[in-house]
């Protein structure tokens, strides 16, 4: 007969042996790398992070994907091309993430696209808008969620036809995004509005606009229409000086991104009414799924959503769907799952076109109006990105692969 203590030890051993597999039943989480300009462009990126955090929590609460939870390792990308590629390298080699998403500035997006191509890792650009990311610098590893410059400028130029303005002035920040938006505008306005000409162009350095001098220079050329690409602090100064000097009176103004709350709210009650803008009228969108998103966001963060919030939220859900369809986190499987993938998002169906890796996420276009103490959009419609994509011929001519 074995001693009592031996039996106890055997029982303990058996217990541990049976408990062992249960303790290891929790599989390793899927690690995804995210990088964005959290210090320099917090007005956009902090709500964006809240958006993807909300989606992440919802997905993990339902058990994650493929039986594993998702873990997003998020870093500040320093808002420069050098820092962002170094951070990306750290995420990939040290943290061992399966793929990357994020970025805000267009030049950073271009650098990340090249990095992804070189290291053969999937990169989903969320906010960078320059066409180059899916055209001239496009590659099979880089995808983009937001509608690019060609699409958004196209949506605005369609509105330009009705205004009848022929003499156009452009003001755009002097870096990749501004230059590419200006180029697209010049091309499209001449194609779609017969007799249109560009009478003035101003390219203030990003964040350093001399608003008074810029407004005077634009005024001097006596345009009928103004195409504005500035955002953030440049936009705020431009609007204030323009209003003070009466630049916008009697002119049609098309403005990229100004209707988005992150750029509209800082203007407070000095909204330039009547501007035709792309934006995000979150409070007036009626679809129930979108309302649910807004309610969940407001409940969790006690703040109203920005476009960045929507973008982060949609992107993480798209990632979840992609991983599920791929059945793994191998780069090639994910890329295959993303080509011509259809997603059912809170703003409706969105497709990731396989030809150029550009999603058909659209934008809301409407006119700015003062609503109480802040601004909003009126007469807006949602333009599905699918109707504004670059043509197949253009894409084939621009892309190198």
């Amino acid at each position, binding site marked *: 007969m074995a001693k009592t203590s031996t039996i106890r030890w055997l029982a303990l051993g058996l217990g541990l042996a049976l408990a062992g597999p249960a303790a290891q039943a929790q599989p390793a989480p899927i690690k995804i790398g995210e990088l964005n300009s*959290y*210090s*320099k462009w*917090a*007005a956009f990126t*902090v709500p964006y992070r809240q958006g993807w955090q909300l989606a992440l929590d919802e997905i993990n609460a339902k058990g994650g994907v493929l039986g594993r939870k998702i873990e997003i390792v998020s*870093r*500040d990308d*320093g808002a*420069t*091309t*050098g820092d962002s*590629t*170094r*951070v990306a*390298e*750290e995420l990939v*080699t*040290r943290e061992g993430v399966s793929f990357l998403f994020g970025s805000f500035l267009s*030049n950073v997006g*271009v*650098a990340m696209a*090249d*990095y992804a191509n070189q290291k053969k890792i999937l990169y989903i650009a969320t906010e960078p808008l320059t066409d*180059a990311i899916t055209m001239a*610098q496009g590659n099979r590893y880089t995808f983009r969620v937001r509608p690019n410059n060609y699409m958004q400028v196209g949506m605005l130029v369609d509105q330009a036809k009705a205004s009848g303005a022929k003499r156009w002035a452009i003001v755009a920040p*002097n*870096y*990749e995004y501004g*230059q590419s938006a200006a180029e697209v505008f010049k091309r499209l306005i001449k194609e779609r509005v017969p007799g249109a000409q560009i009478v003035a*162009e*101003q*390219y*203030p*350095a990003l*964040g*350093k606009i*001399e*608003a*008074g*001098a*810029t407004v*005077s*220079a634009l*005024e*001097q050329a006596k345009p009928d229409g103004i195409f504005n690409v500035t955002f*953030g*602090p440049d936009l*705020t*100064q431009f609007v*204030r*000086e323009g209003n*003070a*000097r*009466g630049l916008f009176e009697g002119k049609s103004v098309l403005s990229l991104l100004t209707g988005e709350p*992150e750029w509209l*709210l*800082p*203007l407070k009650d*000095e909204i330039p009414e009547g501007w035709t803008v792309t934006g995000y009228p979150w409070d007036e969108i009626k679809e129930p799924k979108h309302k649910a998103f807004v309610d969940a966001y407001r409940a969790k963060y006690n703040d109203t959503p920005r476009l960045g919030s929507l973008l982060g939220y949609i992107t993480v859900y798209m990632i979840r769907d992609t991983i599920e369809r791929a059945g793994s986190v191998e780069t090639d499987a994910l890329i295959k799952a993303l080509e011509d993938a259809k997603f059912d998002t809170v703003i409706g169906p969105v497709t990731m076109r396989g030809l150029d890796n550009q999603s058909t996420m659209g934008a809301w276009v409407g006119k700015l109006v003062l609503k109480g103490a802040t601004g909003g959009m009126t007469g807006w419609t949602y333009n599905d990105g699918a109707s504004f994509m670059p043509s197949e011929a253009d894409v084939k001519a621009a892309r190198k692969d």
Partner: protein
Amino acid sequence: MDPSFLAIQALNGLASASSLFITACGLTLVFGVTRIVNFAHGSLYMVGAYTAATLVPRLLEFSYGPMAFWAGILASALLVGLIGILLEILLLRRIYHAPELFQLLATFGVVLVLQDVVVQVFGPQDILGPRAPGLRQPVEILGRRFPSYELVLIAAGPVVLGLVWLLLRKTRFGILVRAATQDRDMVAALGVNQALLFTGTLFLGAFLAGLGGALQIPRVAANTGMDLSIIAECFVVTVVGGMGSVPGAFLAALIIGQLQAFGILIFPKSTLVVVFLLMAVVLAVRPYGFFGRPEIVGGSHAVGISSRKPSQHGVLAWIAVPLLLALLPLVADAYFLKVAIEILIFALFAFSLQLLIGVGGLVSFGHAAFFGLGAYGAALAVKWLGAPMGAALPLGVLLAAVGGALIGALVVRLSGIYLAMMTLAAAQILYAVAFQWVEVTGGDNGIVGVWPPDWIGARSAYYLLTLAVTAAALFLLTHLIASPFGYALRAARDSEARAEAIGLHLRRHRWMAFTIAGASAGLAGGLYAFSRGSVDPSLLGIPTSVDALTMLLLGGIQTIAGAPVGAAILHALRDWIMPLTAFWRLLLGLSIIIMVLVFPHGLVGTLARWREERT
């Protein structure tokens, strides 16, 4: 061009000139008295703007009217003045005896700290200030509308000039400020309470910076990029006007304001470079700015490498250290090797700057110019000539050497802070060229696809290559420092008059120093381009130059080992801190400040001193 438009544009220029003058006046006063180049001046401007944008609306809710508005503006400026006093007492006072450049390093740390503090205290969103009560309606000038607040701004500049002039001429404090600007040592010898004088000057300088920022709020939204955007312009104004000269700053601000207002009509994309071109032109004609006076010769320059017996351990160290480092790939992972490669590259970059600062006594704020030229030279060779790395890298070095020769030729006529600012101007002009010349350089996207050939492409192989090249370059440079050429440079640094008296050709030696330093920095740049696979204009930008200075000063300019050690510390610190938290700038800034306080001669320099004191 009708006259009404010209008039309005000129008034625009005057308004921005006024704002610029008020801020730059503070900087020039502080420099004149304390000889500190206060990089944190832009941050104080930003704090002034944020404070006013938050305070003034609250006061206006209380009682709407001009009194509340202007009281709020002045209160914000006073608050910033108090911050300036805090800065002086807590930080600057402890390092007055340290070499000049050291205080600069401390102010870099303060810039980083304030950047994060401002976001924490005021939030990430830009804050648009209220319009000034009573000045909301525009005025009609020659048939065009002009904001009335701008007219007040235009008047504010000369008012501040007048008040500062009165202060400097009619008060005792002003007399002391002028005396200290002229000859600081004499003022100390005459028994003036220097501590109080400096504190008062810092208060005045910070007050003016805060006032400049606060006055902006009706036209500019307070945002987190303000500090860096204003500081470069302030430096240009103070240098062009002459360091320490308030009327000079006024004149310079006027010219710059007009140039910017009319420059955008001729070259819409010229905003990046117009001020620096002006500085280059002015310094070429008047090496001390408009009303500046020649720097007091001798004594106040940063102490650099002094002659000492070559240590017996020297040869051993030169063999042992590279051997040890060569074993790194056996233990380190791919990411660690990447960081190590970058540390080696920056060590070479900082050491090339040491050649100029520590050996030649020539402070350069624009060293990124050569680094960027080397990188771009290699990248352009790859893109346009299809050259392999073996050919592209030497071509990059060649381009950087040519750049060093050209810039050196322009710069050796100058001295002291003017030389430093001229190098900054050269770097900024190159930056603007790289940014604007999109067809050749790819604009702000830069050039991609600059990869080394496959046999050296693996991380550990490239690491060994970098190690070999860097070790060889450092070895050669060290021997150069111990050679007659190095001695001649040091003689010129320590006493120009004596050096000339014994027949040394000062300018030629300094010019050669620039060329060699340029080539070395270019080599570092080329290696960096191939390690990253791409180049972009930020390699030529101010932050890169600041990095080189920071690394060098952290390590200490008195020793050979200072530059590499400083590079290792800063880069490792940054790499360690950045992923830790969103407040990495705050942590990094605090670390730099702490290191400045604990090691007032740089890490290696202070350790060397302690060792000497013990023996």
